């Protein structure tokens, strides 16, 4: 076979093949080098003290405990609000909605939300939550902003997994005399739980990586906040990403910035692995 191809074709084939291979190789090396560089610059500065204290002007030490806690607070508040709303929205689209036009408009709106840049969310969050609802620059205002931002993610993944719940499950429940809500609560949602978890993890990833939407809503403070402070207005606090930005851009403290970047890299690896595990479970459920 091979001999029948003309020399010109063989050369073009070889060029195209090597283009594909080298593009993949370049990106592969680029990412590995980048991750390696971040760890190389950041890891030496990650110490027990760095992770468990707040920055102190007097002792001239930096610590990122406030930022770690703020990130966790914002994740918990956001997920607690967005999860019921997003799952509810997906249930409506998949189980209740009978008007096709309404579904189309809702899906269009969800796609629009997904496409809005985070800096615009930051601005609108500031207008709505910080000013209009007078929450002040606070963790709670930041979390509420992120609720709007992560809603499309939760709706989409939940909807995907609701679609895979076999129709016969619902029919079986109805045949036994169960009401609609009872069926959803006891049959449909439990079968879709893996997809809901995937959506949750994806949302957590989005929240952890977010910075532009939080700059003007959650603020830039580095004070230690208790969980009780976190849900009150006017308690500003920066997450890990915002603190990275502040250390790098405003203070020129690149050692600390790289250390935070290394921590963020670890978190995103953990999130990636969790998504994979959740999705694998999801797939296995489908095969059953």
């Amino acid at each position, binding site marked *: 076979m091979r001999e029948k*191809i003309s020399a010109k*074709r063989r050369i073009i*084939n070889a060029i*195209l093949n090597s283009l*594909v*291979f080298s593009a*993949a190789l*370049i990106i592969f090396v680029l*990412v590995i080098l*980048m991750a390696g560089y*971040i760890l190389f610059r950041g890891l030496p500065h990650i110490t027990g003290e760095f992770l468990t204290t707040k920055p102190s002007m007097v002792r001239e030490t930096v610590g990122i405990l406030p930022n770690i806690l703020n990130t966790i607070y914002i994740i918990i508040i956001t997920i607690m609000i967005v999860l019921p*709303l997003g799952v*509810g*929205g997906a*249930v*409506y689209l998949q*189980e*209740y*909605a009978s008007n096709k036009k309404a579904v189309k408009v*809702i899906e269009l709106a*969800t*796609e*629009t*939300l997904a*496409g*809005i*840049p985070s*800096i*615009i969310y*930051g*601005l609108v969050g*500031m*207008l*709505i939550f910080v000013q209009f609802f007078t929450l002040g620059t606070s963790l709670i205002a930041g979390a509420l902003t992120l609720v709007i931002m992560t*809603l*499309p993610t939760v709706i989409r993944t939940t909807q995907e997994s609701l679609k895979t719940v076999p129709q016969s499950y619902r029919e079986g429940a109805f045949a036994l005399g169960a*009401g*609609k*809500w*009872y069926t959803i609560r006891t049959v449909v949602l439990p079968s879709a739980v893996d997809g809901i978890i995937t959506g949750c993890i994806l949302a957590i990833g989005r929240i952890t*990586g*977010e910075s*532009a939407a939080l*700059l*003007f809503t959650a603020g830039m403070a580095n004070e230690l906040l208790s969980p009780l402070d976190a849900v009150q207005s006017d308690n500003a606090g920066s997450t890990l*990403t*915002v603190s*990275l*930005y502040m250390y*790098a*851009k405003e203070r020129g403290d*690149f050692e600390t*910035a790289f250390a935070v*970047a290394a921590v*963020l*890299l670890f978190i*995103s*690896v953990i*999130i*990636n692995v969790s998504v994979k595990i959740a999705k694998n479970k999801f797939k296995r459920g489908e095969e059953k």
Partner: protein
Amino acid sequence: MKKNKIVDIAMRWLFTVCGFLSIIFVIVITAFLVSSGVPAIGEIGIREFLFGTTWASTAKNPEYGILPFILSSVYGTFGAILIGVPFGVLCAVFLAKSSSRKASSVFSSVIELMSGIPSVVYGLVGMIVIVPNVRALFGLPDGANLFSAIIVLAIMILPSVISISQTAIQAVPHEYEEASLALGATKTETIFKVTLPAAKSGILASIVLGIGRALGEAMAVMMVAGNVANMPSLFKSVRFLTTAVASEMSYSSGLQRQALFSIALVLFIFILLINIILNFVVKRERK
């Protein structure tokens, strides 16, 4: 029985409200942006605002022309697409058609890692690695310019370009490829002459999505583009629409602050247009 029925009706209402939440949010966001963005445009004058070439918001006689921001955003996005898309499509071909399963699975994990890295981390690496190298390579006084921003954005849009293109390539019916192979085309010729043209609209969608990403990125651009309100030029420090909003927000007041909301409104309209194009492309593909 009656109680169950009441609960059923209540839950139906609750779910309906959740369902319409997306629409409500879009309307609220639009309303807030329009109501806080329009007054300044009215005061400055729409022509002066959109086509004015000078932004001097803190000067004695302030000027609010955002053409430099619009053009920087457009050029920066265009440059990122020009570099990022060919790389992305080639990588997607590698992922979809590579003969080694192990290689493509390792590579797709790397791409996933890439998409999970926060934008400030890209900004940081750009600031420390790309900016000084651009300065040294081209003998410039400062490496924080449009060129550095394009490089960083090109890397940042890769994961979305790759994943959408890959899905499109894999969705091409096998019969097309088998027919081409049966006619004597090699595997490579089949991919480039049959599979890629067949996946055209999916790849187009990935490009539009990439445009949206690049246009909307703020933090990474802020860290590498130098952030001066110049008319764009490849080796000049520039400000994008996104960074124009972010850089002055914390200390702005009065008309200056209102003008920042107007910039956000312009950016929002750009993004809406891109969403409409994306919808159009995807819909045409489904037909």
